[in-house]
């Protein structure tokens, strides 16, 4: 009493209209066309910078100690290896990895966020649960695309694989003690079977949670809810461990000499904040199309709060990694930032910090900003572009050194992936009701109120 609570939710069904299908499909096709044009452009991109590249090696920070000397040796060795694969092909594969990984993060991030909501007994986001489910239904595609990368693109991206294939002995020239020491982890077994296995386990959890959700819709009752909590808790633990391993294998091993213990947390920060932005974007889009009337500003506000908070979290993890490496200035660690603070990447590196931390921080600080769909839209897009750039900076310097660029290839492939992702998610969304109507917390989400 006293308050006017909504006590009933009318379920909605999202219709993925023909027009929308055409548009989203069109975006995908457009992306593909741009990609192919872009591929044509870069295909013949030789390495005119070969001379410069050798110069770069010479310019590389003055390493000291045995470990670093070995590294110099491999760096010099790169010159030869590069000759085998054209820069163009490397660039294509690097882009493919970037987008495969990026969109896979949304899928697994959505699954993780759903699990967190279960485990923490949080009710406010229940209305958006179907969006998270739809996003995580992209997981199989993520497995396939990453699978393509590791089975067909590995030679272009991961030079430790090439190295292992050579099977050099200590007395051979080009022998790299560090890489040789890592073959207990950086080997084909982990890479070719570990990575897909990890993602298949995630998909298994997605399958179980999705099934529970469907059954809950059909039969009601709280048994499915409590079961979901248990599976969610298990998923969170498994995710924490497996995501670390995945990020080391797929991303960190691009720079196989370098290591950083916070790397997996950094990847997690990227995954979580981008996932929330994508959830926010889908919600705003659905609302603009007349769906989800019942999702109040309060829920959007809280999504905005999460985007704000986890942008700060990303900034925190970023500065933790950067500051410690910068401060200690140990050769085997600073190589990573050296490669990213050279003239070629310096501006991108700074833009990245601006887009991923300062812009969302300043935009989303005010209360009214989080309640204004337009501002939220801008903030979400900045975050998404910023973290795309973030991944760009994680991949490109290791693969392409200073020969990366922004061209039709980069934009086209991202557009194609985005089009496909959106199509897939909206299609998945149209197959179930828009709300998990029998979820015990659904009314909490409907009547959510952020308070002051």
């Amino acid at each position, binding site marked *: *009493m006293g308050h006017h609570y909504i006590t009933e939710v009318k379920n909605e069904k999202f219709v993925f209209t023909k027009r929308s299908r055409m548009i989203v499909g069109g975006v995908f096709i457009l992306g593909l066309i741009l990609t192919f044009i872009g591929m044509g452009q870069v295909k013949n991109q030789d390495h005119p910078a070969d001379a410069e590249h050798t110069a770069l090696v010479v310019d590389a920070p003055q390493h000291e100690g045995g470990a670093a000397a070995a590294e110099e040796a491999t760096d010099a060795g790169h010159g030869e290896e590069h000759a085998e694969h054209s820069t163009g092909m490397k660039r294509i594969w690097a882009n493919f990895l970037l987008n495969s990984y990026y969109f896979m993060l949304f899928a697994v991030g959505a699954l993780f966020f759903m699990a967190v909501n279960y485990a923490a007994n949080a009710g406010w986001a229940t209305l958006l649960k179907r969006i998270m489910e739809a996003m995580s239904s992209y997981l199989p595609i993520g497995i396939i695309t990453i699978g393509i990368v590791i089975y067909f693109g590995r030679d272009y991206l991961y030079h430790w694989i090439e190295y292992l294939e050579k099977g050099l002995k200590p007395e051979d020239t080009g022998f790299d003690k560090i890489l040789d020491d890592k073959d207990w982890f950086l080997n084909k077994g982990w890479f070719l079977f570990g990575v897909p296995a990890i993602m298949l386990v995630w998909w298994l959890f997605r399958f179980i949670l999705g099934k529970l959700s469907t059954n809950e819709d059909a039969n009601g009752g709280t048994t499915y809810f409590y079961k979901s909590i248990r599976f969610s808790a298990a998923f969170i633990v498994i995710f924490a461990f497996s995501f670390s391993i995945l990020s080391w294998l797929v991303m960190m091993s691009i720079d196989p000499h370098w*290591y950083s*213990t916070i790397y997996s947390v950094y990847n997690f920060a990227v995954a979580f904040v981008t996932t929330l932005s994508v959830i926010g974007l889908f919600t705003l889009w659905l609302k603009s199309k007349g769906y989800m009337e019942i999702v109040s500003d309060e829920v959007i506000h809280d999504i905005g709060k999460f985007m704000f*908070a986890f942008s700060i979290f990303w900034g925190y993890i970023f500065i*933790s*990694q950067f*500051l*410690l490496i910068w401060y200690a200035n140990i050769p085997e660690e600073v190589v990573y930032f050296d490669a990213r603070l050279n003239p070629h990447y310096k501006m991108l590196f700074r833009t990245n910090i601006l887009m991923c931390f300062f812009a969302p921080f300043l935009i989303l600080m005010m209360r009214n900003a989080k309640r204004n769909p337009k501002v939220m839209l801008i903030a979400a897009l900045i975050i998404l572009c910023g973290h795309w750039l973030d991944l760009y900076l994680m991949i490109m310097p290791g693969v392409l050194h200073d020969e990366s660029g922004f061209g039709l290839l980069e934009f086209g492939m991202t557009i194609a992936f985005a089009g496909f992702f959106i199509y897939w998610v909206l299609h998945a969304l149209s197959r179930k009701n828009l709300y998990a109507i029998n979820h015990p917390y659904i009314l909490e989400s409907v009547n959510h109120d952020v308070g002051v």
Partner: protein
Amino acid sequence: MYEAAIRKPLVTGDKSISDVSNDICRPIENKPTKMWWLGFTISFICLTIFVISIGWTVWEGIGTWGVNKTVMWGWDITNFVFWVGIGHAGTLISAILLLFRQKWRMSINRSAEAMTIFAVICAAMFPLFHMGRVWLGYWPLPLPNAYGSLWVNFNSPLLWDVFAISTYFSVSLLFWYLGLIPDIATVRDRATSKMRKFWYGFFSMGWNGSARNWHRYEIVALILAGVSTPLVLSVHTIVSMDFATSVEPGWHTTIFPPYFVAGAIFSGFGMVLTLLVIARSVLNLQDYITIGHLEAMTKVVMLTGSMVGLAYLTEFFIAAYSGVEYEQYAFLNRAFGPYSWAYWTMMSCNLFAPQVFWFKWARTTPWFIFIMSIIVNIGMWFERFVIIVTSLHRDYLTSSWAMYSATIVEVAIFVGTMGLFFTCFFLFSKFLPVINMAEVKSIIKSRE
């Protein structure tokens, strides 16, 4: 706010609003119980030990401690990090759980925040006295030097720590005090003696519960929660940077900041559980601090314990992966070297033991939770010991290798800070409401 029917009530026993005031003001308005006197006396004796041992240290110098040239940080910094870590749960409970809308925080945030403040006081003792000449303790403050333009060194993580700890202490104190004001006003208006009316009146700052003030109050509480959240992360981050900015194998690792924060939350919740399992039965607060509250806290303990465990494994893994011999040696030495007993104590207390909380029985049995919370405290103390001592005692230069063991003075100082902590806590439980009455009143009424 709307609550789903499936949620269990946070306060049991069908309490009315006046019951809340009566129950929570009882210890303040009545004479202390025998249990209170017993606990207070023991704590006070320990506090005396602290005064004596610290006095001895100041009189004789740091030579009374077991630290040496190689292991220049021993129990002192271990205890410092231990106490700062414990100090994190309070702000976590009131700030982060507020932002995450976990309402169960409401019955425990007051005592956890009090604990924060006392723990930070205990923590600050160690670097202060480790400086040797404590009367020059103001030197780390950013004051111009009398002889010229020599300032403090802002490149030093130790100075960052001065800023972090002092900011954290003062902001936590403000946050805690602000939360106390409405409750102090309640005590003031219920007071029968003149003394009580005067003192509680003085500290209530004239609070009258006007709707306008509540409106502002809620906004301020939210902002303070908002700034405290990154603050609490920053404090242990900066503590971790005391180690991680160095080039010491075992210290210099980039995961230290989040890993220290997770560890801090873990140990903080361990200490909150230790205190509250006792307090709820001594002060008869079982209806406010229910089994549900304990269960939620044990889940946090399990979660953060696993995060800390993940960080241990990550560190170990990356050390092996790095290919740097020094790193690899540092970690192997931890696990199998002369201090391996400390390492395995840490691993079993922090990573393995909390996994029992996967079982509902373990999460809902107070005496068992109490034992587990002690184990967590021990484990987290050993974590800091392992990080500090095992990383230091082997140097790059073999001739500097050394061992370290604490002297009786160091042990006495640690026991003494326990005394300081618990003395403060007993005084707090006598003179201030241990549960936030205003917030609890608002949740018992949100359920029709």
